[in-house]
């Protein structure tokens, strides 16, 4: 018998999709039974009370959570987000309901043992409820009390060899796509770079350094599976410098219908025979392809790495061999001032240990932002406020045409007086020799 009557949220179970209400009820029932005979360290009815407070919120049309506070583990300024219920008498089980962010493994590869061990800790010391994964990529453990925080932290770091993620004015948990581990499009080893950066900048992850949040994300190719270009302050996207590799025989196989396009992804219904002109050449955003006489040609200088042709005919077309990454800066979600997509900073850099060029750029961006950024101002907003040119100056980067094309943050790069021969002054006599009044 449920502790609270929940007619409103019960409706969320009636749809055809999986329901988180059913999941919470399942965990509530499991905790009530306690088949493993655990000595629960947080209230046994925490899931019941969570359903209760959610029902009340649906009834009232307002939240009953307060967030923020002096919760955390010793020496860390992030990783734990304090949450308190503002109706603790009614719902004592969720009076304290802190969230813990745990650094996910690169590419989100788990062993069953890791997941079992994680749940052994979390069923004992927390609500048993998780969010796999939060928007930033972390493993999110939902709902525990203050005394359990240090215990959980000790077990995660000592027994499971993992660490808390980022929150607050910190570097947030870096995240990456699965990269070269499974994907032939990947232009660099995203997991390696993500793991390296997570360790290298660990202090910035755990000890507040910035005016606001700062995110790194690593995408192996321009398909951008972790959407770094839209969701990270500094986005590392794999790319290549030379020509797309074409296997003309395989192109013919696609045209002849021997190989299904899009690697068979659209096999749900019959879309008719594959039409290379309509589905590939005609959709190229820069019009840099042609298919004539059974031969596919690409004007690679005009290619913007949109990936469409490669995605459609993966067996025939492959990314180039001279691989590296592009660095973009300043994306953010629409909390203030609307969403922004990242703007290009560095068109190409080789990915080679010890990543000196990347460290230098990261250091310059941070120095600039720490100095000029206002409190709670993202780096993308700073660029918008002061102009991309200032960012380029601070990063010791020369303006290039790509800096003023879409996606644009600032359409103009101005010459400075010291960059122009003779400065702004001109010899009027010399000028009049060529130009009448």
């Amino acid at each position: 018998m449920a502790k609270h009557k929940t007619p409103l949220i019960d409706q969320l179970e009636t749809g055809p999709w999986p329901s988180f209400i059913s999941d919470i009820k399942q965990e509530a029932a499991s905790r009530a039974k306690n088949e493993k005979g655990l000595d629960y360290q947080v209230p046994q009815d925490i899931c019941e009370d969570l359903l209760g407070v959610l029902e009340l919120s649906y009834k009232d049309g307002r939240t009953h959570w307060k967030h923020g506070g002096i919760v955390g583990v010793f020496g860390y300024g992030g990783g734990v987000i304090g949450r308190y219920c503002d109706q603790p008498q009614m719902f004592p089980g969720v009076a304290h309901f802190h969230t813990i962010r745990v650094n996910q493994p690169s590419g989100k590869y788990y062993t069953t043992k890791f997941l079992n061990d994680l749940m052994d800790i979390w069923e004992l010391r927390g609500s048993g409820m998780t969010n796999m994964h939060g928007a930033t990529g972390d493993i999110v453990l939902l709902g525990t009390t203050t005394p359990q925080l240090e215990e959980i932290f000790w077990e995660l770091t000592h027994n499971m060899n993992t660490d808390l993620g980022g929150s607050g004015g910190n570097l947030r948990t870096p995240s990456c796509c699965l990269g070269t581990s499974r994907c032939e499009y990947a232009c660099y080893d995203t997991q390696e770079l993500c793991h390296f950066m997570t360790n290298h900048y660990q202090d910035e992850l755990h000890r507040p350094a910035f005016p606001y949040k700062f995110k790194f994300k690593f995408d192996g190719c321009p398909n951008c599976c972790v959407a770094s270009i839209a969701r990270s302050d500094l986005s590392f996207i794999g790319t290549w410098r030379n020509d797309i590799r074409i296997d003309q025989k395989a192109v013919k196989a696609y045209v002849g219908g021997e190989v299904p396009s899009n690697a068979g992804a659209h096999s749900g219904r019959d879309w008719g025979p594959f039409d290379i002109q309509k589905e590939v050449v005609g959709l190229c955003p820069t019009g840099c392809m042609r298919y004539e006489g059974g031969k596919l040609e690409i004007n690679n200088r005009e290619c913007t790495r949109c990936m469409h042709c490669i995605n459609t005919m993966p067996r025939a077309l492959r990314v180039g061999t001279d691989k590296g990454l592009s660095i973009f800066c300043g994306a953010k979600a629409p909390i203030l001032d609307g969403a922004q997509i990242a703007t290009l900073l560095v068109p190409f850099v080789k990915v080679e240990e010890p990543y000196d060029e990347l460290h230098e750029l990261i250091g310059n961006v941070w120095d600039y932002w720490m100095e000029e950024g206002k409190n709670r101002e993202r780096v993308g907003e700073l660029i918008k406020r002061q102009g991309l040119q200032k960012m380029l100056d601070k990063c010791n980067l020369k303006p290039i045409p790509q800096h003023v094309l879409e996606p644009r943050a600032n359409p103009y790069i101005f010459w400075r007086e010291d960059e122009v021969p003779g400065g702004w002054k001109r010899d009027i006599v010399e000028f009049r020799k060529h130009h009448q009044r």
Partner: protein
Amino acid sequence: MAISIDEQAAKDIIVEALKGKKGKTKFYLKDYYKMLPDEKLMDVKRLVNQMVREEILEYWSSGSTTLIGLKGLGKQHATEEDE
């Protein structure tokens, strides 16, 4: 890299500056930069974080931003739970 003046002197400057503030008890990291204007920002950040480990200061986090104040001042656990 370290702070250019004596570390203890720098800590004293921060503590004095915080004690002198009226009303607010918790501040952005950026406010600490202004207390030691001649130092590198990363060095001030390291010092402030060290003072947290020494339990002179403490963090307050909303989840999205972090504030730092003198330990024990202002809103504490008890009031946040039961206010």
